[in-house]
């Protein structure tokens, strides 16, 4: 882990205590304004914004370490959307809204538009329906990522319809967005056409899942070591240890793949079909890890207080907002067939 990520890990440990995250989710409360201000004050919102535009200009390889820390500490995903998608998109377009986002004065968010949930028409007007987006409180701008385009829209536009939808991922600011006749502020290439902004953001979300899975793994191993049944610890039961081994294998594969995708992105030599594959596999494996973790924990893992559900909700919501397992697998298949 880089120095930066280790320091960030310590800072988030203090700013976002786990017990507080459990309470916030129970009460549907967003991150406090002061905690948000501290995180933005560290430069979080400018991670991938070029230095000349006032950001830190980090590469994907550096950013994934920080995103894994974010996932481990359950940093609201909207902050990843602001930092890794919204701000870089504004920067790429030279949009005047960038400064406000990097400084944290303008809140925002973002989401993924699957191919079935809308598109941009020939005149550049956006019509989407039922798209899940994560928004920080008071968000004014949202970045949307479709395989073929990346766009930023103003949420003040009269054609925007937003409905709060936090049944699954509470306290994450999830909304369902529909638009009719909205002209985006910014339009860039989509990741399927090599758009680097969208690709960097997706790599960050995948790294977030890796960080969460690492935390879940270590909780599970600790639990299995300390919990006794039939007079011996759970780690003496092969049925349990083989579940742990499968989880560990999935986790290591996720880490290898996300490190690889970040490396090739920083080399400027990445293949959209590779990324398409990871949009299926990384969320699917994170989900497997978490489901096995709940099983290994038994009853305690199913309680609200223990909090495994916060990771599970985050994984399910990320997977579903990317289109779900079947859609992402089919999309990867199509990308593979098209590339061949």
């Amino acid at each position, binding site marked *: 882990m880089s120095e930066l990520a280790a*320091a960030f890990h310590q800072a988030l440990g203090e700013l976002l205590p786990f017990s507080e995250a459990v309470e916030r989710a129970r009460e549907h409360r967003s991150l406090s304004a002061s905690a948000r201000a501290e995180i933005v004050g560290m430069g979080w919102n400018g991670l991938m914004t070029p230095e000349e535009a006032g950001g830190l200009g980090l590469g994907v390889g550096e950013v994934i370490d920080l995103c894994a820390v974010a996932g481990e500490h359950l940093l609201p995903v909207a902050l990843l959307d602001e930092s890794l998608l919204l701000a870089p998109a504004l920067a790429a377009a030279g949009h005047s809204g960038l400064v406000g986002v990097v400084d944290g004065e303008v809140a925002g968010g973002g989401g993924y538009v699957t191919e079935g949930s809308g598109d941009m028409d020939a005149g550049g007007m956006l019509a989407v329906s039922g798209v899940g987006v994560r928004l920080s409180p008071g968000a004014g701008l949202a970045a949307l990522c479709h395989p073929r385009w990346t766009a930023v829209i103003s949420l003040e536009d009269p054609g925007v319809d937003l409905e709060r939808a936090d049944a699954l991922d509470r306290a994450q600011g999830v909304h369902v967005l529909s638009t009719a006749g909205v002209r985006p502020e910014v339009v860039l290439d989509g990741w399927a056409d090599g758009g680097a902004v969208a690709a960097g953001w997706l790599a960050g979300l995948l790294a977030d899942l890796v960080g969460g899975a*690492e935390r879940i793994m270590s909780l599970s191993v600790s639990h299995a070591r300390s919990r006794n049944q039939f007079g011996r610890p759970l780690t003496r039961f092969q049925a349990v*240890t083989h579940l*742990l081994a499968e989880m560990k294998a999935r986790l290591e594969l996720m880490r290898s793949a996300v490190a690889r995708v970040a490396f090739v992105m920083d080399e400027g030599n990445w293949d959209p079909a590779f990324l398409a594959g990871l949009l299926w596999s990384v969320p699917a494996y994170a989900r497997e890890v978490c489901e096995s973790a709940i099983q290994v924990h038994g009853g305690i893992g199913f309680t609200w207080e223990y909090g495994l559900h916060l990771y599970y909700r985050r994984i399910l919501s990320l997977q579903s907002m990317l289109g779900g397992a079947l859609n*992402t697998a089919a999309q990867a298949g199509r990308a593979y067939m098209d590339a*061949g």
Partner: protein
Amino acid sequence: MLAALAVRRNVAVCDIVEVVLQTFPETLAMGGAEEDLRTELRAWISDHDPGPPPAEYGARIEALTRWQAALCEAGFMGLSWPVRYGGRGMSLAAEAVLAEELARSGAAELINRLALYTWGPTLMDMGDPSQLRRFLPGMLDASELWCQGFSEPDAGSDLAGVRTRAEMDGEELVVTGQKVWTSRAELSTWNALLVRTAGDPGQHRGLTLLITNMKSDGITIRPLPQMLGEPHFSEVFFDEVRVPVANVLGGVNEGWRVSMKAMGYERGIFVLERSIRLRRRLSELADRVRAAGGADRAGLAGIGRIHASLEMLTAQAYRTLAHQQAGTLLPGATSVDKLYLAEVYQDLFSTAAEILGPEVTLADDGWTHDLLESRSVSIYSGTSEIQKNIIVGRLLGIR
């Protein structure tokens, strides 16, 4: 950002970095030397590609042996071996380039890969100078093929159960016992043979690794046809076979340590090679699907899942090679590679059978062969259950 973090806590930057967490792992970087090699290999292979080897087993082995000899003659064997041992002194990334470029040819397989990637490196670590002089050259040009004599009727996954005994008699060891599942026993000159020189079956101590000439008196090889109908592996019987003490690798009673070292070398390139071979099969599957007018959503999802899994497997293999290269590979780490290889292998051919349907899978073609063969992958070289035990013990530290 780091400065902001330090200011926030009112401490020096170095003071706040005390937590060591998992970081994202290394991955294999191909530099200029590797890319030059790729160009050189691509040109050479396009001039010399022998095409797919014959289907008949004996003819296939002969063709593959000639192919490796030709590659050696052209200077492409032992790329990562030191120059003093007949190699080119390049990185493991060069071996990855070789594997990738060979996969584009008709004959991706190196017949003596067990020697090149497992026993050659182990010899370089643990062998004495005369052993290096004697054994290394024949590995490179495939003039002396190698097999490995580990498994026995009562020592499969439980390797410490080895009963084949060797008794010291002057300057020789006299071997008596039986091995099983020995791949290519009848073709090999040398067998990396694990025997018991002390202790009782079940003990790790008292094992010795003995480089045994397969043409010695007292060896009987009985092929065991596999479910594929090929004589790929054999039972090998040893009846007072005399092996010079000079052929002991790593010391008498040090066989467990030698075997573990060898197994550490076994996986990196092997998994990459397999992943490339599977990529080729996926590409053939995609061609068939295109020719049939495309796939439905479930078919596309199947192809997408396999494609993604192969990308994960390749990323994992690149990581392993990068860590092998840097000397930072954790003990037990390659069990993840092997476990996942088996999963992806089996998933690919089952999915292909589903997508292609009976017309193809009932035909006597490569798909049927590979579907059957895929069941062996979760058994050979340590079953999937053994890999999980290793992950639990070595990677999770649970004893």
